[in-house]
């Protein structure tokens, strides 16, 4: 298994400066707790060497080395985990420094995963962290198979859906080791959530997708002809004006010149329509879809995730995600402090972990094109480039280009021409390895 791949690290940790005596002094607090029975532990919990050993031997994957990821790495290292991998494709930006506490000004521009791993290993000797600078999609099942727990600290729903589908797909009923608990955290301002998924056994990220409904987009005609809000002017500059005037330059939302250009375009349009409130900061916020983020919320959510990982690895207390138990903690901190911890139910018609198709009420007079567009905003699907087919025929493919051209004429057709009432059709998106099965129900 994985341990064999890192012999040097393993040797260094066990034979290094920390002999057993100082090690037990160093981990006195955690070890004291793990060496005593708890008031809530299972009867078969055996305090002492087993949970202590489990913590040191578990191999944990951390996805994301940003606001949550930095906290998660620190927390795991100081919980006694010794084998950690971390994946992040991003480099450090100056706006990360207000919360991503493993990074300094001198690190701006360097890969997050590398800097974070180096820092924590230096601060917590004996902890081996292997960074990977890249995308989670670059790795295959064999890679993911080596971990005992996966923890996500991501700001992207797409990446969460991808790893969730991958871990669900890896479950082999004959091999208990193929079941990897997935612990996931997310924050926005003073709010956040942490949740635990036991793939195929409990509600998965895809089952819970409608808890994070996408924001409704402003209709294009509003942007083009009747703007009313400063945001409309910014979106106009972003979506329409840039295409018109700078088509050949790829928009880089991190390039201050590009943002300034959009800002000025938005400002002058706002002036034409007597709209006030366009600022540089708002332009940046709208164009980059910036989510406010602070150190304290990240600390709460990351620590909650790692607390669950600690309990899962040691069985020292009940954890979220035990089938039939709570698996989700919602956290709100803007008005007092409020947590809501509950069990999110697994869905039989989940496209990832369920096996039933979902009924979809459709207007037979609607065009296929309208249906195709609706998938981006449907809370349960959120597919931007959907491909649709029935068992017999292809309805519409967004990609590749050739197939798109061939199926484009269908977009104009009415649904009644394309589908029968009660017919099953499938929707997929190249971004995910997920197929949504629907049954058309004409209203």
């Amino acid at each position, binding site marked *: 298994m994985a341990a064999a791949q890192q012999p040097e690290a393993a040797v260094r940790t066990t034979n290094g400066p920390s002999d057993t005596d100082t090690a037990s002094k160093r981990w006195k607090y955690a070890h*004291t707790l793990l060496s005593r029975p708890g008031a809530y532990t299972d009867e078969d919990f055996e305090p002492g060497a087993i949970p202590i050993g489990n913590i040191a031997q578990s191999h944990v994957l951390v996805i994301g080395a940003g606001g949550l990821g930095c906290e998660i790495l620190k927390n795991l290292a100081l919980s006694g985990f010794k084998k950690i991998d971390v994946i992040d494709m991003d480099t450090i930006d100056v706006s990360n*420094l207000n919360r991503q506490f493993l990074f300094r000004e001198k690190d701006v521009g360097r890969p997050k995963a590398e800097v974070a791993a180096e820092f924590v290993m230096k601060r917590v000797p004996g902890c081996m962290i292997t960074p990977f600078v890249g995308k989670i999609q670059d790795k295959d099942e064999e890679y993911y198979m080596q971990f005992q727990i996966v923890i996500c600290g991501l700001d992207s729903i797409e990446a969460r859906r991808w790893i969730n589908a991958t871990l669900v797909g890896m479950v082999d009923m004959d091999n208990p080791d193929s079941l990897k608990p997935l612990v996931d955290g997310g924050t926005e301002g003073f709010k956040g959530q942490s949740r635990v998924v036991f793939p195929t056994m409990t509600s998965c990220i895809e089952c819970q997708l409608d808890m994070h409904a996408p924001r409704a987009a402003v209709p294009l005609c509003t942007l083009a002809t009747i703007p009313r809000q400063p945001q409309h002017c910014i979106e106009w500059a972003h979506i329409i004006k840039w295409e018109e005037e700078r088509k050949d330059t790829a928009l880089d939302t991190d390039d201050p010149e590009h943002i300034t250009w959009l800002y000025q375009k938005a400002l002058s349009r706002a002036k034409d329509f007597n709209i006030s409130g366009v600022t540089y900061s708002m332009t940046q916020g709208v164009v980059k879809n910036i989510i406010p983020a602070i150190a304290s919320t990240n*600390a709460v959510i990351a620590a909650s995730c790692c607390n669950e990982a600690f309990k899962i690895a040691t069985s020292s*207390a009940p954890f979220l995600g035990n089938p039939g138990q709570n698996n989700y903690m919602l956290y709100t901190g803007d008005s007092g402090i409020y947590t809501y911890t509950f069990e999110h139910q697994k869905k039989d018609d989940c496209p990832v972990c369920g096996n039933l198709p979902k009924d979809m009420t459709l207007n037979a007079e609607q065009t296929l094109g309208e249906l195709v567009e609706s998938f981006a905003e449907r809370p349960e699907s959120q597919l931007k480039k959907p491909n649709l087919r029935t068992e017999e025929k292809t309805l519409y493919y967004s990609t590749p280009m050739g197939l798109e051209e061939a199926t484009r004429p269908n977009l104009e057709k009415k649904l009644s021409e394309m589908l029968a009432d009660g017919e099953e059709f499938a929707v997929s998106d190249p971004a995910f390895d997920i197929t949504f099965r629907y049954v058309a129900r004409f209203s």
Partner: protein
Amino acid sequence: MATEDIPPPLHDIPTAKEKKYDRQLRLWGASGQIALEETHVLLINNGPGVTGVETLKNLVLPGIGQFTILDPTLVSEADLGVNFFLDDASLGKFRAAETVKLLMELNPTVQGHAISEPLETFIAQEKPFARYNLILAAAPIEPAILATIQRRAQELQIPTFTIHSTGFFSAFSALLPPAFPIVDTHPDSTATTDLRLLLPWPELVQFANEMTAGLEEGKMTAQEKAHIPWVCLILRYLEKWKETHAGKVPETYKEKTEFRSLVRSGDPHEENFDEACAAVLKSLNPPTPSSSVREILSAPETSSLDATSPAFWFIAHAIHLFYTQHKQLPLPGAVPDMKAQSADYIKLQNIYKTKARQDCAEVLESVRKLEKSTGRSPKMAVDEKDVENFCKGAAHIHLVRGRPLQIAGLEEGQPAKFGDRATTMAMELTTPDSLIGLHIAFLAWDEYIATHRSSAKSAGGELPKVPGSGPGDFEADTEKMTGIAHKIVDSLIKEAGTFIEDPEYSEVKENVGKFCMELVRAGGGELHNIASLTGGLVAQEVIKVITRQYIPVDNTCLFDGVASRSQVLRV
């Protein structure tokens, strides 16, 4: 470039500091940031001391002005396994100085100071807290010393947080001034819309009439009809409704749904009619101030102004006068986005803004009169901007009535008292899933510490002994602590003048006993995750208190890391 005709708005491009703090400025703005930067926090650190240091991490990163750590202990091997802001080189040195050094690396603009003096002598100084704006005090602290800290903090009205973090559990309490008002509570944007559709003023009525002229006669183009702002549609149909309902507006749920059908009859499909129908139930309620707003308007501070009253109470008094006269609060003035032609929407927006400005001007005038009648010095004149913000957020202002800390173990053999909260807290005892049992377990923990001494000597002399800290203490201390906790339960029931019968009574005791066992299990040790989580919670509350934005916890927050849930109790 195509933008030559527009001068580059240099003032708008963010400074280096704004770039670094961008993600937080979007939450608390420049004024919140200034308040943070003017703050000096004191951490009185005890025990393993991780939660306090983690709290500071979350304050140093967003750029608090200064922090000081008071901690007389020396760094032990066990500290290195749980505290991220120490490294191998720290071993044997003063923990205060070492943690300050590594925390300061996080943000070069923040100043940190270390004091390694024992708490007992520090607190005995004259005005020990004069330099600080906020105090964090981590358990264990002897009850008599905690009482002194509380007295000193109250003298200067310094907000103070006491923190417990043991094993899978934590708790913290906020000691806030007796009156802690907040204007900028950042309510949810959907909760703030106040359009006054039941009491429109003449300019709004006139605009609605203009926008809907010819609607029912069919004299409008489809394009015009589809762009009537929904606010105007509702106002128009309300007039129509009143014609057939003796001049009354729809009041009951049934009437409102009937009214919705009336609006719907205007057009089956258009988006603006959809928007109007969707808004019927929400926007046809008379705007009555919430109980917490009414409490502020009728507070003794509001009615008994004197020349030196804080500005908040002057404005509250003026708003009270406004409310008495107009039977409503000043108009906030914001209009949500809705389908409309640009120019019409802007007109509508201006009608609301103008009315809001008029209301605000009236309040400001009252404030000035009050200043004169109380003889307030012109140097202390209430800022116009504050009046404006107050008027905008009047429906959502909040007042926290700070309460003294509940200190356990002050008198030997006397279980902690709940005072005027006894009845409510006794009810918590039998409320399913309540964390009152955890609160009682922490009180028992404090009481145990008040009566037990550790044999180990430290720089500060004798240290309190923490339950379960010795290798063979687990069973005996669990029993002792549970005994103390059960006495607190009985005392609370008695104080509340109630009683709880079996089997509930046994369940309450069993529940409390489990929390006690878990606290003893940890032997006074912190788990890093719980320390970090609690440090996040406390830092967030500190930020709310310092910036006077959002709504702080009132007054005790408990976290159960086994069940992964929290509860706020007012004790």
